């Protein structure tokens, strides 16, 4: 950690006054990382890169976009037809949103399976949930900008959710719209916020990283690192692994952008917004479908809205709902089963969200919604006390199972000694 570790005199001069190079060296190069991370740990860095791709393409798209109800649709078509490489930039941005969510959802399920939300990483987890919320708001407002039929009606339906709030609801909706329907003022503020929020996300991501580097990454065994024999420096080991993961990710991403660019979109959004005609089936973007299903599962307007927000809110208190001292699902036989049931439940909710709200779909939607909340509010607390975990290994590098070492995860030490 001495400032003189750098050979280049310019770097050394700067670093003495502004220790940016020591900081980077410490946090991005030396940073001791558990050596047993599997490929699921690639998705954190992939999410970060997705965010960067979205911000870069978004900035250049905004140079060609006009946020006005009379010009928005036309300006997007101009991007698609006349702007140099405009179609490429827009398809990257459009599909990038979907891929960002795919990556983040995998990242979240990885955290759920390996208990990455548990002490001492509760705040790390909660910051992640904040990022998810910000992403959802950003994606929703971005989808409004092309001002197609789905943009318009999506904006109308989602903003109307707030009208469910007693007393202040109507006022809030009018305030959100800046008028008496979704119109030009709404489009303008959505554009403004859609540009702003990604940078707020960057800020929260930085906090997320600070919190991560406090105790270091969790790992598939869910036990703490016990010293240098359990860790390897981030560079070159995880830089190359993340690079490989990025190449594979980009391959899938490019396949969508170049060969199925509209697969995850909806044809109705190529029809200009029409305030007098709602499309026959209005569906949110696929990443909102599970939440949309929860919204519709509750037959009460306010109840539905509360349930939908509750589905995310419950993630905030997850670290206290699951109090089992064993982090990794690998050593929790019953938890593991319920994890996969929960995962299937989320897929079912997504499927139901895409289906019309009628007949059997309503019933399935309600059962799946109830199960979603039961999993967090009942099953996890009960499992915390009722389940007998399998014995934990003594350390990452010693595959010896130490009796009932269930407490191995409890005493995590900070990665960095206080200086």
């Amino acid at each position, binding site marked *: 950690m001495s400032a003189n570790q750098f050979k280049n005199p310019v770097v050394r001069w700067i670093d003495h006054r502004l220790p940016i190079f020591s900081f980077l060296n410490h946090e991005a190069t030396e940073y001791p990382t558990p050596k047993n991370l599997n490929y699921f740990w690639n998705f954190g860095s992939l999410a970060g890169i997705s965010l960067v791709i979205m911000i870069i393409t978004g900035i250049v798209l905004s140079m060609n976009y006009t946020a006005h109800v009379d010009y928005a649709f036309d300006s997007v078509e101009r991007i698609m037809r006349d702007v140099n490489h405009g179609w490429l930039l827009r398809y990257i941005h459009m599909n990038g949103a979907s891929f960002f969510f795919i990556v983040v959802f995998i990242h979240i399920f990885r955290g759920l399976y390996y208990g990455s939300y548990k002490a001492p990483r509760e705040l790390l987890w909660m910051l992640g949930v904040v990022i998810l919320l910000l992403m959802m708001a950003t994606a929703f407002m971005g989808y409004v900008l092309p001002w197609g039929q789905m943009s318009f009606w999506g904006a109308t339906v989602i903003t109307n959710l707030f009208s469910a709030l007693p007393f202040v609801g109507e006022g809030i909706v009018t305030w959100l719209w800046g008028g008496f329907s979704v119109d030009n003022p709404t489009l303008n503020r959505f554009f403004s916020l859609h540009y702003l929020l990604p940078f707020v996300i960057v800020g929260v991501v930085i906090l997320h990283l600070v919190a991560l580097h406090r105790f270091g990454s969790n790992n598939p065994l869910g036990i703490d690192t016990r010293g240098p024999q359990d860790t390897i420096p981030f560079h070159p080991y995880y830089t190359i692994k993340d690079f490989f993961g990025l190449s594979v990710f*980009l*391959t899938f991403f490019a396949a969508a952008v170049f060969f199925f660019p509209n697969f995850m979109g909806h044809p109705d959004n190529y029809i200009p917004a029409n305030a007098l005609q709602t499309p026959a089936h209005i569906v949110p973007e696929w990443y909102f479908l599970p939440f949309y299903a929860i919204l519709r599962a509750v037959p009460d307007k306010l109840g539905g809205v509360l349930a939908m927000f509750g589905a995310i809110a419950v993630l905030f208190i997850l670290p206290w709902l699951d109090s089992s001292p064993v982090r990794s699902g690998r050593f929790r036989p019953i938890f593991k089963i319920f994890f996969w049931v929960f995962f299937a439940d989320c897929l079912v909710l997504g499927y139901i969200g895409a289906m019309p709200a009628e007949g059997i779909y309503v019933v399935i939607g309600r059962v799946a919604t109830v199960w979603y909340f039961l999993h967090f509010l009942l099953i996890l607390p009960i499992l915390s006390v009722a389940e007998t975990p399998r014995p934990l290994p003594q350390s990452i590098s010693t595959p010896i199972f130490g009796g009932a070492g269930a407490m191995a995860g409890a005493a995590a030490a900070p990665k960095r000694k206080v200086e």
Partner: protein
Amino acid sequence: MKKPILTLAAAVISASFSLPALSAGGGDVILRQEEWSFSGPFGTFNKASMQRGFQAYKEVCAGCHSMNYIAFRNLADLGYNEAEIKAIAAEYEVEDGPNDEGEMFMRNGIPADRIPAPYPNELAARAANNGAYPPDLSLIVKARANGADYLYSLLTSYEDAPAGTVVPEGMYYNAAYSGHMIAMPQPLYGDDVEYADGADTSMDAVAKDLVNFMAWAAEPALEERKRMGVAVMIFLVLLSGLSFGAMRFIWADVKKAEA
């Protein structure tokens, strides 16, 4: 460890790919499937057919349907040269102005102009068509689920209503249209156009020409996109392979220590 990875990946991929497809389906009709030259990773547009489609659009559709996003200069993609495009543009009168007196005036079209719309606005279009709005066709292939097949089916599926079905005044029965009652009268009967190249002018053939033309109009960058896509995919697959090799080299000492 391999199993959950694969399960999760498979589930996420299938979820992300099947849901929108299901939601986009909708409707009570079965479409006629056709092999289009522009589908598939190496798909390209059929220029001769697009030129015929443009002619059919001008002679059959353009009386009611606009193509607001297509400029004459875009017709270069159909294989027309500059002089031909100028001549096509000059056939049209477009509104320009205001001039020095503040009046709008008509002049001959130039390549930079867009194809003029048949009606000045949506209300005028509705007024002239019994209240139905003939939609703009420049994006129609992308604005409908399975747009190419849908359009082809729609153009070729006018038939007599089954016994017992009452077709209201001003409506027509079309097997490919959701609800089967469509306000657009049958546009193609066969031999509606005369092609200079002597190509088939049956209803089926003209419908395909129109679809080829409109698929291009909806996504003019399609060929460039797919060409670039093939190059990018090759690059990324190579990069994945190379970085996998680099990863194995770098991790070799860690793996050896574990073994």
